[in-house]
Structures are given as C-alpha cells and as structure tokens.
C-alpha cells in the first residue's frame, strides 16, 4: 500500500484550517457555545473529543468496507455508525472509570455528551462517502478532533477575556458568543487560499 503524504497533508490542512469542522461546517456547536467558559474544561473536552473521533473513524472503516459494502447495505450506514459510536463511548467510559478514576472525574460528564456530538458522526459518514482509505480516514478523524479542540480553546480564551468587558445586557451569553464565532470564522476564511490539490 503506497502512502501518499501530500494527500494526507491535504486532509489535515483541510480538516483543521480550511474546512474547520466548527467554524466553516457548523458541527459540534452545542459544546462550542455551551462549554466554552473555562479553559481547563475546554481542554478536557477537546482531548476526549479527539480520542473518540479518531477511534470511531478507525472502528467504522472496517465495518463499512468489510460488512456493509459486500452485502450492499450502504444505506444502513447511519444506523450502524451511530450504534458503533454509542457503544464505543460507553466502553471508554467504563474503561476509564475502572483504570483511571482521576481522569474519569475530570472527563466524566463530557464523555457521554460526545455520543451526541455531530462531529463524530459526520466524520465517519464523510469517510464513507468519500471512500477514503483506512489511513486517510484515521488521519481525517484525528485532524477533525484537533480542529475542534483548537476552535474550542480559542473561543474559550476569548470568552475568558471578555468576562470583564462592558457588553450590553441583551447581547450577553449566546449572542456575543455567536458574534465572536462569526469573527473567528472570517479569520479562518483566510485559510481557504491554502488549499493545495
């Protein structure tokens, strides 16, 4: 199997910068707006997210290519993938609780939340739709997680600075968070020139 480094680099740059899953594809907005208030929490969420999305990409690939395609069951991909993701997250939760209670305490609430994060499902479906190879799927999953973590951490840092700012009463909370997201999204538009084919 030949490994095309340029193609992999393209996938990384596309997932992290050009088509950042949060800022230009609007995925995973709920934690993005809801959780982005404390930096350490955002960091924990970002790391668990990266782990889950990478592993889900790796898990769903063999299922799609060795089970669904040979039996012509591609249309069942949504149901299969969401089940795999839900089971995997549950397993991780049990495993972490057993072997690393400290980490479990830190991540506890966020792990189950990730099941319902659209980024995970979207990445696995995108891998299947674009017929990526196993390595490419894994790389795409990992970069999607990194892109999500980066956007979340940037957002949180800005919102921490914003805490003391004089914001009009009716703009507080969600509206100002969306304005920030919009400005960040503008900045990320600048990356669109980066796309190398």
């Amino acid at each position, binding site marked *: 199997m030949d490994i095309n480094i340029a193609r992999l680099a393209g996938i990384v740059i596309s997932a992290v910068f050009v088509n950042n899953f949060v800022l230009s594809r609007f995925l995973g907005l709920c934690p993005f*707006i809801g959780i982005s208030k404390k930096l350490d929490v955002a960091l924990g969420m970002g790391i668990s997210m990266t782990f889950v999305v990478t592993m889900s990409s790796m898990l769903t690939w063999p299922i799609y290519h060795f089970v669904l395609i040979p039996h012509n069951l591609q249309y069942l991909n949504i149901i299969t993938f969401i089940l795999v993701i*839900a089971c995997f997250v549950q397993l991780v939760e049990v495993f972490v609780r057993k072997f690393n209670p400290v980490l479990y305490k830190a991540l506890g609430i966020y792990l189950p939340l990730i099941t*319902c994060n659209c980024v995970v499902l979207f990445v696995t*479906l995108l891998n299947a739709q674009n017929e990526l190879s196993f390595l490419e799927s894994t790389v795409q999953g990992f970069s999607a997680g990194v892109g999500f973590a980066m956007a979340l951490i940037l957002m949180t840092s800005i919102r921490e600075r914003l805490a003391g700012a004089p914001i009009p009463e009716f*703009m507080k909370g969600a509206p100002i968070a969306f304005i920030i997201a919009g400005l960040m999204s503008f900045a990320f538009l600048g990356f669109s020139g980066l796309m190398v084919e």
Partner: protein
Amino acid sequence: MKEKIACFQKCFMSGVCAENPTFRLMLGLCPTLAVTVTAENGIGIGLAATFVLLGSNIIVSLIKDFIPAEVRIPCYILVIATFVTITKLVLQAYLPMLYSRLGLFVDIMVVNCIILGRAEAFASKNTVFMSIADALGMGIGFTLATGLIGSIREILGSGKWFGIPVIGEFFNPAIAMILPPGAFFTIAVLMALMNKMNTLKKVKTG
C-alpha cells in the same frame, strides 16, 4: 374532546413560540446554520426535521412502556436513525437537487438535539396524541426559524428570495452573508433582538 383540542393547541403553540427550539431552547443549531444559505434550503431542512420528529415522537410514545429505563437513549437513537434513513432515501429519490445541497446534514439529524430532546423530555412521558402536537409545534417552530435565517441570508447575500431577485440593481449583495460568518452574525442578531424584546415585555408587565 374540547379539552383535548385546547391541550393540542397549547402544546403546538408552545413549540412555535414560547419554546421555539432555535431561539429559546438553542437546540439543533448545527443544521440551522450550516445549510441555511437560501430560504429554500432552510425550509427543506426544517420540513425534513419535522417529519423525523413526528415519526420518532409517535413511535417513542407508543413503545415507552416497553423500554427499560437504562437503555432508553440507544433505543430512541435507533428509532430516530430509522426515520432519518427513510427521509434520506425519499429525498434522494424524489428531490435529488435538494438532497445534493443539504448533503450529509440530513444524515446528521440523527444526533440533532431537538429530536432526541423531544423524545426524552416529551414523548417518553406523554400520550401519542400530545406527542404529535408537540412534534408538529416544534417542527414548525424549527422550520420558521430556519426559513427566516435562510431568507435573511439569501436576501442580504445574493439579493434574491427563493431564487427570485427582490432587491433592485442598486443593491450590492454582501457575499459574507452566504459564507459561514454570515450565519453566525445572523443568529447572533436574531437572538439579541429576542432578548431585547423579552426585557421590554418584562418592563411592560412588571
């Protein structure tokens, strides 16, 4: 019977206004922002979500007594995934143009918090009749919100509404509105307006 109809109306209206899923509950934001480049897309995703919501609410309220509490969430997700698959196949077969524009965002409705949220918070505790009212109210509230955001973005971003030019030649469309940042700004302004109206209302009544 009359009481039932009044109840139905109350449930329905609370979804459209008081508990509007987008502006009040802030649920299901991903599709709301991602596909609302035009008014047509907005209405399309809204109606697709309404159908899934209706189906999942009916089934969940029917089977709520048979599902053990510990595994209810995976069960709900399976029910929802079934209806999403149906929607996807129907769209692909009969409205391929719309599906190609909405793309994977139809699939993503499986993990849409509105649908799972209503199954968990409403359909699992209420009768089929009430669940239908709730699903229709929430679905139409969602469709109105996506349609509104889509209209604003399409008019400001390309000077058209449902593909028909509505603003004269003098208007220079702001492309940013149909790019990702425009979606964030639109929802920010709409939410701020909502907040402002609420505080004014409170001052009046309080």
